[in-house]
């Protein structure tokens, strides 16, 4: 398949499918090499980057998907029914951050960290499609394990779990420094 046709075919597939498509599936269907696919994808991205284009490619784990560019949101809400955003409660957000950073986790893991029963938060997150059951822990009772979904990546604007903001011990150090500073201020007064 010549380069132009390959590029066009990738666009055609992404448009028709609407949802995310795994790169390897496209490569199989179009019978091209990984390099040829990567080249076509790059060419498409360059195209879409132009100011007179309204759509863009978003990469999620090993899949790609088309979406509108952010700057047309205000125009779009005037004419399309924008799906309602799932606004999450603080409890659900806390639970989500535990699942995202510690996945796979059981209900009990979440409950231990939060110090409260988190069933309803977990259920809500499953219902919204942000997390899903990813298996069972090899332990008595074989409890369910939860992990985040592609929908989570999409809704929170990250390519993959690795791209989540880092949560490292430094953050904890910051907390400590902050706490100490606060105490200092107090003592100074």
């Amino acid at each position: 398949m010549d380069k132009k046709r390959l590029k066009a075919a990738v666009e055609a597939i992404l448009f028709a499918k609407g949802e995310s498509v795994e790169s390897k599936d496209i490569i199989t269907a179009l019978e091209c090499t990984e390099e040829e696919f990567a080249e076509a994808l790059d060419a498409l991205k360059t195209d879409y980057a132009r100011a007179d284009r309204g759509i863009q490619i978003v990469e999620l784990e090993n899949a790609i998907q088309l979406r509108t560019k952010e700057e047309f949101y205000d125009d779009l809400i005037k004419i399309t029914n924008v799906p309602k955003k799932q606004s999450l409660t603080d409890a659900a957000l806390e639970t989500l951050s535990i699942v995202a950073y510690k996945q796979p986790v059981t209900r009990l893991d979440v409950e231990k960290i939060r110090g409260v029963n988190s069933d309803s938060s977990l259920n809500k997150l499953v219902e919204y499609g942000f997390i899903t059951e990813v298996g069972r822990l090899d332990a008595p009772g074989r409890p369910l394990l939860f992990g985040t979904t592609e929908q989570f990546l999409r809704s929170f604007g990250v390519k993959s779990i690795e791209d989540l903001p880092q949560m490292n011990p430094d953050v904890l150090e910051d907390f400590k420094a902050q706490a100490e500073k606060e105490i200092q201020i107090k003592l100074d007064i």
Partner: protein
Amino acid sequence: MAIPVKLEVFEGPLDLLLHLIEKNKVDIYDIPISLITEQYLEYVKNMPKEDLNVVSEFLVMAATLLDIKCKMLLPKQEVEEGEEEIDPRAELVQKLLEYKMYKYMSLELKDMQMGSERYIYKKPNIPKEVSSYKAPPDYESLVGDNTLQSLNELFKVIMKRNEDKIDPIRSSFGKIKKEEVDLDKKQLEVCAYIEAHKNCSFTDLLSKQKSKMDTIVTFLIILELIKVGSVDVKQEEAFNDFTITYKAPFTRIELV
């Protein structure tokens, strides 16, 4: 009287503790346990008690706090050489730090979600020609290991199975007619028997019946005779035989 205080809502005991630590501007690594416990208990005392599950979660933490407070009041235990002395608060501090970290990350997530709200995705538009496409049959994989021979074998099996369904012996049996019990005749028989014997045994009467249906009908006739007052039935002891005594002339019984 307690002044009603509008209570802040906390996600859980850890959330409340963090709040108290921040409010008092104390070091999370060196929590003034007496002060914090006191404030914690004060909050729990005032919290709405509707949801006992929630309350109990807060109470568990209260117990933990009191436990730590006790340990800190006790004189320090002798520590074995080389071992570091364990602060009774250490475990709680670890939990608080872990929780605080995830809580912090949850705020980051919240911002991220707001930032990615402005993209719109589309629904699939698979052209009809594509979605209704049916792959042409792949005859090689359809036929697979089947051959004309196996098809023939299969046909023989089916025909045999079909033949077996007809049982050659039973199919030659004649039909067995259902024996009907003639109610009028039966009634006359039973009545005549009782009248002739004046007193008769129920068991004896039943033992004279040929079939299950005869027995059932006889029993029903006796019940009816009792009802219309033609006979008396007596039983000397539980589980013993009944004695049927003739009382009055019989009238025709309509059994339904």
